[in-house]
Every structure is written in structure tokens, then in C-alpha cells.
């Protein structure tokens, strides 16, 4: 089914709503804090859904479906051993420091806790990472449009860039957050029928997995060794994905944390990842299962032609089942997910650029209006650079491998810095700096040595998991060792920044069902049940 006029109309209506939100919010963007942090005034159900939606980009929608077709239900490890535990940890243990210290960005926390060089290193590496990531979303969108609308890659990249540019430059973070929430619902409504119709047609879950390669129906049963679809044993999964990559991403990536910082108080900020985690638990049904269905229903999938690569699993399912009308909704859902993934990166980029690089090193003590203007300029510049990176991604066979590679360079080592910084007050500023630098170099070095043939792994994903573990470990060990030979900050400078030197009283006053510990306990039980059900 190729798209018809009605499908274009549906996409057009969606664009009108997205841009209207940007225009309406423009009058509220008076200060730089409004633009970058939404004036810290947004209710937690909105920040929670934006938290999940900023991450619900091409990687989640197309990448997870691609992995579902390639590795089966083991892909759900990204959710049930990866994302959910990390989101709980962020909410309960780390958010009090992020929100409580009133920082405007993750690099700014590093400055307060450690020193200026640590912040600079993180700010620059984060800025590089966000533009590399936002290019993935444009590339993915171009792939889908090429298949279903027959647009050229250049045309769809430019159209998507123009729309994101318009609404983020007008309404800043609020516009981005509001659109992310709208996109969340569109993604649910646009993709759910695929899973429902597909499962009914193949005769249910049991019939589906009978028709798939061996091992596609279990999460853990075959992980005693690496001879399973993913090529990683349980140690690799738990350490590389569960601990380092997921915690590194969800607990330190400013893209998602920025959504929580926009909340109106600490307990709302803590609830943000928890509210996000409830729908997130069920996301494998929207992403992984359609990928598995694609493998069953579309015989050519996985062959090396562009139109039948694993990345195309979900678009091909849309094409198979959706008539004109629903196809427009499905396309809008994918488009929405790519735009939210891209806007998320761009709003995080403009904040870090303006606060942590421009205001800190290039132009101190300018007026607030000046920084607001620079923020808008950075938004435009970020999008232009993203267009260039979109073309860079085209050289990689799988967007998921590309993304996990980038995370393993930047986020995985960084998590060791945060873990030690927040929970061990002896960690010294220079130890943190050198640990982070060496951990990052180790991860990047490992990648090039693997490329050169010095290390061998059964799959790209296995290499990503182990690279992350090494990068984290080297940072962790170096930081601890150097902390014993360098001078720590006095405790008076660490109030509110380190465990044991902060005030938790503010959280205790909520009704029981809003308390972070209660929500986190419910989520823990649900996650364990998911793991056991598909053991």
C-alpha cells in the first residue's frame, strides 16, 4: 500500500498542531529559564510522558523492531533488565542531587561536584553526541518516507528538519515537551493495531514463536553461554547492557534528565522517570513483537537490500496491514517519534551549548535576552549539523549498532563518574576528570582495536556491551585510585551534591500513592514478573 492523498492530509493536520503549539507557547518564552527549563513549572504526568517520548525516537521504534526481527524477544532485555531498573535508580537515588542542587544541566552538576575541566569535557562530548544522535532520527525518517511516500532521502531530511526547527525555536523546551506528549499518544495509537492484527493472524504468541528460529522466545533460558540469538551470555547482558549501558544512558544523559528538571518540585522530578516507566514496561509489545511478526510474515526481511533490511521491519508491517487512512496515522506516528527524538536531542544540545559552553567560556555576564537569542541560534545550528550527521549514519548497516556504539563511548564511562561522585564523598575533582578522560579514551580505543581485528565478538551488540563494561571499569578504577592521591573538596562545598550531605525531608510529605518508593516498588514487581513470564 502506497500512501494516498488522505494520508498526506493526516500528516499535514499533525504538522499544523505541532506548529500551533510552538506559536502559542512563544509568548510564554520570556527568559532563558523559560526557554531551556520551562520555568521549572510542568506537572509530572507531562514531564513523565515527555521523558519516555524524548527517547521514543527512531531507535526505539525502528531499531527495537529491527532487533526483534534479528534477535527475537531477547531484545526486551533493553527494557526489563536495561531501561526500567535504571529509571528507578535515577528516580530514587540520583534525582535528589540533580533537582535538589538546582543545576540547569548535567555538566553543571559536574562543575559543582568536581571542577570546571570535568564539566567542559562532559559538555563538549555531550554536544557532539546529541548531534550525532539526532541525525539518526532524520535518516530513519528518510528511509520510511522513501518506502511509503516515494520521497527522496534529501527531501524528507529537509522537511523533517524544517518542522523541528520551527517548533523548537519558537517554544523552546516547553514546546518540545508538549509535542513529545502528543507524540507519545500518536505512537501508541499508530502502532498498536500492527501488534494486535499481526498476533491474531499468526494464531497467537505460541504459534508465532513456533515459526521463528530457536531461542527467539526466551529471555534468559539460553544465556548460560553466548550461543543464543544475541551472542551474549548473561554476564554480558547484566553487566554491559543492564548495568553500564542502561544506567549510563538513563542516569546521566541530559536529554532525558532535562525533562525531569522541568518539573515543578523535587517529588514531581522524582516521579518523572517513574511515571515514564509504567508505559515503558509494555513497550516491547509495540516495538519488539512487530519485529518478530515481520520475520514471520515477511519472508524477505533481513536480506541485504535496503528495502528489506531489518531496519525496515516496522514500515513493512505498516505497508502490509494498513489501508489508506490508517497508513497516514501510522506514518504520522513514526514521523512523530523521529521528530520527538530529534527535538529532544536538539533542546538538550542548545541548553548545554548555551549554559555550559557559551556562557561559561565564551561570553560571561551578558543579558538574559542575549542568552535566549543564543539558545535559538544554537537550535538552528544544531539542526544544520544534524542534517550532516544524518548522511553519516547512512554508512552504518544498523542504526541500533551505531547508537549503542556512541553510548558506549560517552555514557558508559560517564556513569562511573556519577556513581562515585554522588555516593562517595572522597572522590576528588581531578580523579573524576582523569577517570572520565581515560575511560572515554579506552572505549574509543577498544572500538578501533576491534575494527582493526585485535578483538573478536560474535555480534556488533556483544562488542558494544563489552566495550561499555571496559570503559566504565577503567573510569571506575582510575577515579578511585587517583582519589587517594589527590585532594578532595571540603564537605562544606559538597552540601546537596553527595549522598549523606543532602536533605531528603522535602519528599516525605506526599500521599502514599505518589511517593517515589511506593511507585518504584510496584514497578520492580512488574519488571520481575515480565522477566519470569518469558524466562
Amino acid at each position, binding site marked *: 500500500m502506497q500512501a494516498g492523498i488522505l494520508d498526506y492530509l493526516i500528516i499535514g*493536520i499533525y504538522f499544523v*498542531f505541532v506548529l500551533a503549539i510552538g506559536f502559542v*507557547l512563544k509568548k510564554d518564552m520570556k527568559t532563558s529559564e523559560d526557554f531551556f527549563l520551562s520555568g521549572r513549572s510542568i*506537572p509530572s504526568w507531562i514531564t513523565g510522558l515527555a521523558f519516555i517520548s524524548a527517547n521514543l525516537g527512531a531507535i526505539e521504534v525502528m531499531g527495537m523492531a529491527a532487533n526483534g526481527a534479528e534477535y527475537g524477544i531477547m531484545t526486551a532485555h533493553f527494557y526489563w533488565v536495561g531501561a526500567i531498573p535504571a529509571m528507578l535508580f535515577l528516580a530514587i537515588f540520583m534525582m535528589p542531587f540533580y533537582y535538589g542542587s538546582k543545576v540547569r544541566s548535567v555538566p553543571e552538576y559536574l562543575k559543582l561536584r568536581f571542577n570546571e575541566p570535568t564539566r567542559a569535557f562532559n559538555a563538549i562530548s555531550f554536544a557532539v553526541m546529541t548531534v550525532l544522535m539526532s541525525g539518526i532520527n532524520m535518516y530513519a525518517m528518510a528511509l520510511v518516507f522513501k518506502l511509503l511516500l516515494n520521497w527522496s532521502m534529501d527531501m524528507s531530511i529537509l522537511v523533517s528538519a524544517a518542522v523541528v526547527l520551527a517548533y523548537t525555536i519558537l517554544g523552546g523546551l516547553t514546546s518540545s515537551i508538549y509535542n513529545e*506528549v*502528543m507524540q507519545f499518544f500518536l505512537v501508541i*495509537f499508530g502502532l498498536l493495531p500492527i501488534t494486535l492484527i499481526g498476533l491474531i493472524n499468526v494464531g497467537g504468541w505460541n504459534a508465532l514463536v513456533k515459526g521463528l528460529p530457536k531461542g527467539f522466545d526466551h529471555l534468559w533460558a539460553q544465556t548460560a553461554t553466548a550461543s543464543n540469538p544475541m551472542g551474549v551470555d548473561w554476564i554480558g547482558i547484566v553487566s554491559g547492557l543492564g548495568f553500564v549501558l542502561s544506567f549510563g544512558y538513563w542516569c546521566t544523559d541530559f536529554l532525558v534528565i532535562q525533562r525531569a528538571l522541568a518539573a515543578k518540585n523535587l517529588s514531581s522530578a522524582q516521579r518523572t522517570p517513574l511515571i515514564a516507566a509504567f508505559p515503558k514496561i509494555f513497550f516491547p509489545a509495540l516495538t519488539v513483537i512487530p519485529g518478530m511478526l515481520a520475520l514471520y510474515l515477511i519472508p524477505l526481511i533481513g536480506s541485504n537490500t535496503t528495502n528489506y533490511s531489518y531496519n525496515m521491519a516496522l514500515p513493512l508491517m505498516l505497508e502490509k496491514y494498513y*489501508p489508506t*487512512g490508517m497508513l497516514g*496515522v501510522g506514518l504520522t506516528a513514526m514521523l512523530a517519534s523521529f521528530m520527538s527524538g530529534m527535538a529532544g536531542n536538539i533542546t538538550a544540545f542548545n541548553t548545554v551549548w548555551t549554559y555550559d559552553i557559551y556562557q561559561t567560556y565564551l561570553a560571561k555576564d551578558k543579558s538574559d535576552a542575549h542568552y535566549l537569542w543564543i539558545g535559538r541560534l544554537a537550535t538552528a545550528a544544531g539542526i544544520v549539523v544534524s542534517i550532516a550527521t544524518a548522511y553519516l549514519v547512512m554508512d552504518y548497516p544498523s542504526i541500533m549498532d551505531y547508537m549503542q556504539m556512541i553510548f558506549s563511548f560517552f555514557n558508559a564511562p560517564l556513569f562511573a563518574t556519577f556513581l562515585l561522585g554522588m555516593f562517595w564523598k572522597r572522590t576528588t575533582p581531578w580523579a573524576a576528570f582523569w577517570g572520565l578522560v581515560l575511560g572515554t579514551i579506552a572505549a574509543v580505543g577498544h572500538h578501533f582495536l576491534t575494527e582493526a581485528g585485535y578483538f573478536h565478538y560474535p555480534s556488533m551488540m556483544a562488542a558494544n556491551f563489552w566495550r561499555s563494561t571496559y570503559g566504565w571499569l577503567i573510569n571506575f578504577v582510575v577515579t578511585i585510585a587517583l582519589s587517594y592521591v589527590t585532594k578532595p573538596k571540603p564537605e562544606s562545598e559538597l552540601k546537596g551534591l553527595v549522598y549523606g550531605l543532602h536533605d531528603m525531608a522535602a519528599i516525605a510529605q506526599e500521599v502514599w500513592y505518589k511517593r517515589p518508593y511506593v511507585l518504584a516498588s510496584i514497578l520492580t514487581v512488574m519488571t520481575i514478573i515480565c522477566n519470569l513470564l518469558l524466562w
Partner: protein
Amino acid sequence: MFDLRAPIGWLFVVLGLILVGYGIAVPVPTQVATTTINLNIIWGAAMLVFGLFMSWLAFSDRGKSSS
């Protein structure tokens, strides 16, 4: 700032109406197990109901905080 549930409601009402209307005007069967369904009508109706629900939430909460 405005209540976000209002524009979400409107968007889904508009999209739901379009799908139901088109589904009635140009029925396209989608094979589901041994039967066929009109996906545009069924899912359009679901989106319409959701849109009305969000609009109603926004309408009934006018003037109050949306938390």
C-alpha cells in the same frame, strides 16, 4: 501555559472523524484471522473516543492546575 490535554483531544477528534468518515465512504477490508474488518472505522472510533475523553478532561478542569 495552556492545558495540554485540550490540543491532544482536538487532534484525536479530528483524526478519528477523518478515519471513520473515510472508512464509511471507501470501505477497505483488512484480513484478521478468518474474517475481515474495516480498520479505518474501528480504529478511527477508538481515536475519536480517546480524543473526546481528553477534551472532556481539559474542559472539566478549566481554571484549575492540570497536575
